[in-house]
């Protein structure tokens, strides 16, 4: 009879430990609408790029980049660093004039290989 409170506490300790494990406190790696660019990155030994769509959307309307700079369909833009350095694709802005130049690899190549973009719920293909 005397041991009962102890057992009760133990169960609650286990429950709260489980609570910690269940609650995902990690900040997400990406936001809804972000784009992973990994056609060439990991093959070349670089972490994938996670393009923050929202970050650019705050500053520019869609029509600034689409469809003149980037075709609006996943996989239809073959983006390489060589093209970026020669002011195509991201390099149209990231050239040291409009935005910072493509010299800081880890600013964009910051995704992990298992990065997951949050998807919309329901009606997902």
């Amino acid at each position, binding site marked *: 009879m005397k041991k009962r409170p102890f057992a009760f506490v133990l169960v609650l300790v286990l429950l709260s430990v489980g609570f910690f494990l269940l609650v995902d406190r990690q900040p997400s790696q990406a936001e809804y609408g972000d784009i992973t660019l990994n056609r060439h990155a990991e093959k070349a030994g670089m972490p994938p790029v996670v393009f923050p769509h929202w970050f650019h959307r705050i500053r520019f309307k869609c029509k600034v980049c689409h469809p003149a700079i980037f075709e609006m369909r996943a996989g239809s833009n073959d983006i390489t660093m060589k093209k970026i350095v020669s002011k195509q694709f991201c390099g149209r802005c990231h050239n040291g004039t409009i935005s910072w130049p493509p010299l800081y690899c880890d600013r964009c190549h910051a995704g992990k290989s298992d990065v997951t973009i949050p998807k*919309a719920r329901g009606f997902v293909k």
Partner: protein
Amino acid sequence: MLTPRRKTSLLVIMMMMLGALVFVGSPQVQAQDGADTQSDDDFFKSLIDPRQAIWMDSRGVIAGTGDPNGFVGEAFRSGKGAHPEALELSNLPLDQYGLVNWARAIREGFITPRHSLDPTKQNKPDDKPFGLALLIPTKSESMPDVIFPHDIHTMWLTCNNCHPEIFAMNGKLNNKVMTMPKIAAGEYCGRCHNRIAFPLSDCQRCHVHEKNAAVPEGVKAP
């Protein structure tokens, strides 16, 4: 009923629960602290060449320079990729799913995105949004009709983003071939909605018009 030992154990449990709540809630508390340190941001702005800074949030607060030892956001430092916490700080209006409500953001002036990269055009006002609203009858009797507003779409996009590749310039033709399964598979509206724009599960944002009700003024019926 409550012996002193039970009372003590109950107290311990309650404190643990409280501790857990505080622990789980702490990231948001930190985020709010970060938003209030305006003077710190000014100090760092004075140190950093603005061309080399990453402007993380909509208020132009610097959160990183790419230097891992510098003034970098928590998530960036831990290698978690692009700017996840800065969006929380941006104070943009959210929809029922916690996603950014971009339509409200641009309509109510939370953001003023640029409409051109050309410096000669940047200072000129953007083209006025195209106001035409179209009634799109649904194929199901139980689902309200859609009213497609051109105006919010043309605040972001220009005609050739959608026409004629995604939608033919013929409403009747489009209405015949457009179905929800196709849209969910990424055609028509699904080219942007469910991916970048708000998700398709937010039915009532498009299906707004009761079947057989009078067509509102300014809406073009097919």
